[in-house]
């Protein structure tokens, strides 16, 4: 609900500005709407920050908690933490609110990113250890978006509904761990686009920068990381709360270049 409110505020502010500052009603101009398709190339950075406590002061567990508290678990293809590149395909509509102001709505789909390395519980007994040889798979995602702007500069939001397949073969821990988790987030940001005429056809080149401004992870994602970390450091080892996850945050940043064309005008 909070995310929905943020989105509404974000979209309404420029709308009010458009209506009030120009002193005119939003009206139909020479064209009312245009519809087309768009492709995107994305550079995505996704990570999860685990808030962790350890009641076992002065131990290995306290250092493990400190590492987790000063870092984020990254969605990345290897230990060198390279960013993720992805593509997307969308249907896009432009509603011309006035001579200057335009509302963009877009409904797109993005294939999954390259698989990421992930923590895996590698022992089959109570002194389990972590390895970084697990694989976290990102499934395709739906990404509806809306932008409101003037003169090709837009502010807007995108809802990224992304699900993940968690690593298999956690040994004894596998029974407790969810195999598929969802982590849906609203991303806020900007879009800049320009129309270029290519052989009398209008091609729209755009760039976007979006972020979820750090938000709590979904319940399933939070529970997944609690279960993984607690297996290694929880009651399974030398007593209670040696290493415990109290909260999980998702951090997402996305830079995109878009290329689109309009086919239908109303």
């Amino acid at each position: 609900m909070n995310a929905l409110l943020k989105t509404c505020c974000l979209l309404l502010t420029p709308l009010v500005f458009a209506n009030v500052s120009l002193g005119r009603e939003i009206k139909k101009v020479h064209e009312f709407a245009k519809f087309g398709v768009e492709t995107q190339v994305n550079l995505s950075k996704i990570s999860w920050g685990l808030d962790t406590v350890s009641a076992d002061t002065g131990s290995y567990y306290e250092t493990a908690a400190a590492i987790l508290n000063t870092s984020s678990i990254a969605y990345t293809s290897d230990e060198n933490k390279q960013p993720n590149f992805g593509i997307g395909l969308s249907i896009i509509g432009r509603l011309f609110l006035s001579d200057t102001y335009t509302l963009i709505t877009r409904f797109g789909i993005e294939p999954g990113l390259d698989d990421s390395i992930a923590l895996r519980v590698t022992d089959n007994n109570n002194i389990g250890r972590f390895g970084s040889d697990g694989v976290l798979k990102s499934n395709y995602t739906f990404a509806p978006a809306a932008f409101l702007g003037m003169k090709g500069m837009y502010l807007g939001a995108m809802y990224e509904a992304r699900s993940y397949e968690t690593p298999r073969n956690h040994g004894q821990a596998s029974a407790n761990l969810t195999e598929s988790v969802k982590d849906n987030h609203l991303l806020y940001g900007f879009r800049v686009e320009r129309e270029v005429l290519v052989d009398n056809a209008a091609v729209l080149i755009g760039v976007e920068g979006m972020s979820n401004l750090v938000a709590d992870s979904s319940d399933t994602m939070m529970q997944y990381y609690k279960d993984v970390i607690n297996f290694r450091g929880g009651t399974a080892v030398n007593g209670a709360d040696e290493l415990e996850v109290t909260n999980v945050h998702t951090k997402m940043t996305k830079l995109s270049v878009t290329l689109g064309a309009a086919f239908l005008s109303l």
Partner: protein
Amino acid sequence: MTRLLKSCLCFSVSAVFASGSANIDFTTFRVGAQAQLHLLDIGWGVNAAVRGSNPSAEVISLAGLLNVSEGDLTDGSRSFTYGFGAGLTVRADIAEDFNILARIGVEGVVHDAVALKLSDGTPNKRLSADGFFSAKSVISPAGFIGYKGLYLGFVYDMREYDTPLHNNMHVDAYLNSDDKTSGGAFAKTIKDNQFLFGFRGETEYDIGGAALIIGLEGLSNIGSKSDSSTKDYFNSITEAIGLVDGEGLDANNNVESTLVQRALYSDVTKLSLTLGFLFEDL
């Protein structure tokens, strides 16, 4: 050298595109000033490996944690780091609808970041999360080339950090001990200069004799190796982590196994809102 090549490529592609469309003609220069607000997503990724005989489950687990994680520049509430900046800009029209934009600016960040701190000495290392990275103000020259207000370009992000105030006794004990295997040091200040590549979009409003420019930028270093001083610093931290709680030491406190850092990568992403003015043509 790779960074320089990347920059040249970035500029060359745009310049070729521009020159192919119209004759390059440096006709107009405009100078101005610009203020920036940044959302910074900065992290360091340690590529760690276990070295030595008979490593414990704890050391192996810590290597696993480091390999899937990035050290964050965050204030501890998991927020992004927000920054600000100001700079001088020069914009040249090189052809119809094509511009070059150059900027030299100074940047700062809003708050310190939490960091790992060596809080116990030899032989039982221990690290806590109550240290601080203080980011210093940095100079950040930038260059963009664009078409109709949509630019591609780069920023050279020259960033310096004051590292956490580790307990001197523990650092000295560490540096003088046999535990240290690779000669790293806990430098008090580290540098991490990175080329960021990306885009900028701007819109211009005429206000009398000047133009008000509102711009938006998205930049990333696309994951590059860290500078040597930062790499050395994190190498020392990684080694200390491998010896935590006496793990990795044998019965005589000699190093039996430890963690080593194979590589350190900086991951910098920056979203910016800029507001500036350009004055009369020169």
